[in-house]
């Protein structure tokens, strides 16, 4: 590996990061993240223009990760077929024939490979040899350099909690679509769909086509929200659309959901409740790299802002603008599902944060709650200044779990906006962090790190005087300590 030599013209802090970060092991003119139609098209266009192109797609993710709702909200409704890695790779190729065509064009394609971070020199960061995208598969992690980076990461499911949603069988529409049409690995038999916009209608028709019984669609507004031809098709398939209605709770047993109870009291037998309220452009990488983001209600909420160093393709750039106000629609759902929820309804599944504890800004159960703490709440925080979701996350742990906030970041933002009486988007969203996918230590680790990193390593700043006992400062002993301590650097 090459190293950028620190300038010889000034004294160099051997414990500083300068010159220690490795150069990427490969470099491509164009790296495309996401192997859906938009990503494939971008990759093929680049190769046709004579560029070297790498296309990575995280699918298929390992079965264990799918159980943790990576990358979509699978809700535990996968069959064991998802545990067979070879079969899973095969299904990705057979369901996306353009992938093979892209490979024949000369695109290098890596499946089962996630992009977990993008590193760029910028504010407070100037020690990278060059900008890189960080990748990992099931064996290792590595860095790849790029001339141009295209993000085609798609969209993921918006989850909004209600009583009983934290059990197997509550899942998202994107996840259901992937299990049905790509992997043929959906374990449910009868599904109730929440929502009636195009996403919900299309999901209902797909499920019907794949032989899954569709118990109906639940729509809180007074009329179906999707395009008339899709509504017609769903009605023609004898699938009821229950308007003015909300799922009040999911009931079930050891295998998860068995039925849904609606606000009207109606009971609907279903082993799966599919949330099809909305899609969120998958901008975790954008957030984690500190790139700009804007709120566009017609395009699905938070979408990437203009960034000279990035290009976006497909749904991650924003949903197609059909004039539908996605944010107003999902806020209606958040309000109504909040109204049927109780204080003990879980919001953050990983950390088991309840709605009452989120709004009350209370700590997890393993900590005591003295009176002074119980008197604190979102209200008292708002009195101290504008609310900040990251601050509330730190105090309540909502969004701090192993799903990295993908299940609850947006619903926490909606709940906070509703409770604060402020428009969605006015409270800063919680941040996403690198790695934007959970990656085991042993895989993330750089087992071939450069000698400069090893030699210059120190536990803190590498300032020997910082570690001299106070009483020895200015004495003969100080020198002894400093020699002994400094010898211990680069442990």
């Amino acid at each position, binding site marked *: 590996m090459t190293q950028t030599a620190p300038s010889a013209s000034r004294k160099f802090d051997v414990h500083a990061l300068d010159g220690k970060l490795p150069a990427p092991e490969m470099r491509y003119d164009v790296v495309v993240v996401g192997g859906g139609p938009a990503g494939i098209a971008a990759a093929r266009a680049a190769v046709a223009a004579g560029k070297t192109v790498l296309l990575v797609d995280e699918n298929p993710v390992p079965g264990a990760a799918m159980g943790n709702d990576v990358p979509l909200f699978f809700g535990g409704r996968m069959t064991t077929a998802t545990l067979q890695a070879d079969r899973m790779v095969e299904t990705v190729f057979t369901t996306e024939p353009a992938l093979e065509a892209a490979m024949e064009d000369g695109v290098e394609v890596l499946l089962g490979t996630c992009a977990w971070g993008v590193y760029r020199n910028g504010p407070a960061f100037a020690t990278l040899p060059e900008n890189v995208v960080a990748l990992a598969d099931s064996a290792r992690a590595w860095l790849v350099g790029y001339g141009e980076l295209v993000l085609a990461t798609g969209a993921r499911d918006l989850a909004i909690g209600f009583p009983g949603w934290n059990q197997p069988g509550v899942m998202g529409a994107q996840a259901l679509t992937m299990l049905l049409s790509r992997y043929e690995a959906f374990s449910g038999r009868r599904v109730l769909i929440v929502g009636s916009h195009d996403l919900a209608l299309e999901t209902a028709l797909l499920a019907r086509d794949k032989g899954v019984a569709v118990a109906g669609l639940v729509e809180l507004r007074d009329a179906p929200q999707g395009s008339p031809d899709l509504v017609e098709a769903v009605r023609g398939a004898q699938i009821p659309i229950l308007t003015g209605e909300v799922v009040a709770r999911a009931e079930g047993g050891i295998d998860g959901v068995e039925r849904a109870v609606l606000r009207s009291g109606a009971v609907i037998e279903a082993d799966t409740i599919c949330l099809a309220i909305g899609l969120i452009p998958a901008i975790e990488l954008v957030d984690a790299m500190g790139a700009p983001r804007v709120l566009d209600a017609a395009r699905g909420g938070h979408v990437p802002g203009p960034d000279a160093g990035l290009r976006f393709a497909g749904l991650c750039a924003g949903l197609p603008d059909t004039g539908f106000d996605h944010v107003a629609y999902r806020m209606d759902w958040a309000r109504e599902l909040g109204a049927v929820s109780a204080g003990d309804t879980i919001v953050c599944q990983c950390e088991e944060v309840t709605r009452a504890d989120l709004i009350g800004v209370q700590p997890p159960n393993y900590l005591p709650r003295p009176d002074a703490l119980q008197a604190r709440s979102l209200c008292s925080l708002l009195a101290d200044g504008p609310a900040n979701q990251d601050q509330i996350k730190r105090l309540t742990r909502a969004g701090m779990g192993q799903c990295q906030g993908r299940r609850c970041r947006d619903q926490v933002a909606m709940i906070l906006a509703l409770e604060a009486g402020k428009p969605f988007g006015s409270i800063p969203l919680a941040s996403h962090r690198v790695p934007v996918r959970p990656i085991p230590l042993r895989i993330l680790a750089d087992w071939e790190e450069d000698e400069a990193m090893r030699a210059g390593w120190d536990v803190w700043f590498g300032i020997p005087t910082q570690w001299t006992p106070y009483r020895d400062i200015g004495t003969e002993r100080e020198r002894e300590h400093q020699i002994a301590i400094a010898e*211990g650097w680069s442990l």
Partner: protein
Amino acid sequence: MTYVGMPTPRETPQDTMARIADTARGMKVVIVGAGVSGLSAGWWLARSGAQVTVLDKGIVGWEASGRNGGGASHYQSPLFEEEQRMWPLMDELLGYPTEHSKERIVMAVTPKQLNQYHYLAKMNNDMGYRVDLLDGDQVRTMVPLAGDNCLGGMHYRFGGHANPQRTVQAYAWAIQDLGGRIVQHSPVTGFHTLGGKVVGVDSPTGRYDCDAVVVAAGPQITGLMAQLGVDVPLAAARAEMIVTEPAPMMPLGGVDGNGLYGRQTLRGNLAYGGGPHEWIDTLPGGPPGRPTSPLTRNLARRLAELLPKAAHLNVIRSWAGVIENSPDGRPIIDRMADPENVVVASMSGVGFGLSPASGHAVRDLVVEGRCTFTDIAKLSLSRFDGLAPNWREQQGWLSAA
């Protein structure tokens, strides 16, 4: 409670609180910076009866105070004994949980590390702080996630760790409960001086009149104090940490070594940092960003080596904080000669754990004019008199940008 090897405190923390209760009654104090040092100072002053206003450019504990390893074991400091006296009582005194936990284990996976830790153990025992040496098997018994590669270690029978984010919020809330004010999103833009004193502090949220000022604004101290004609040499750097998903709880969460600092949180996550830092330029408004770097991978490696039985755990986030250091890496806690009612507090990268004591020292400087419980003369600003203006360059502490 007292620690083995620690001198018996002359006074319980509760008795200290009772003794100081009215010593600053009526005094208006403005604290610049709602980090852990400023907040602790504000809390001690509010406990003394002062009318405390804490101003911050952003949110409580948003910089290094809320982004660190949570360690409370800087035994080199003259403030350490006071820190050890206070920490076990802080939850009760503040009224909010800090997740403070006692003691630490430091474990070696290379012979060089083991030698280093043995040196440090002797250094501590010489100071009267008890450190027990452990062999590999003893470490493996106490640290279930340790592996066959562990060669031994040491058990600090003192020190500990706490949750930085919960702690900073606890200080802030406790100040409010005592009648003080926390004004966020309120960067200080100027000072009013009269007769050798600062009598008012300006910010976009208004002018705050004061009898005394504490400047505890981390790297921004330099720019603020320059407005008062005082040179405070500090350099800022970015340092990084990683966090895993929860692991089974170990009997003692304060476990580190192999060039890492960190802890297992009470939730079970492993939160660890260490390794190279990046010097950056300081802007008046604070850091322009706090990005992490591919150093994440080197931290992952170190942690997998330290705790091999956790190597399968997922890393779920990384973060960075911006920390200031003085030229010798030691805190600056000092009351200025002119303006004479200004106290500067930079803890130079070792502030979190020492905070219960640093606040006491600052309170003493504000109210009594001197630190009453320990000698902090070697932490005075005057030790940098005559420092070369290009000291950052001479020490190699310049931004790579």
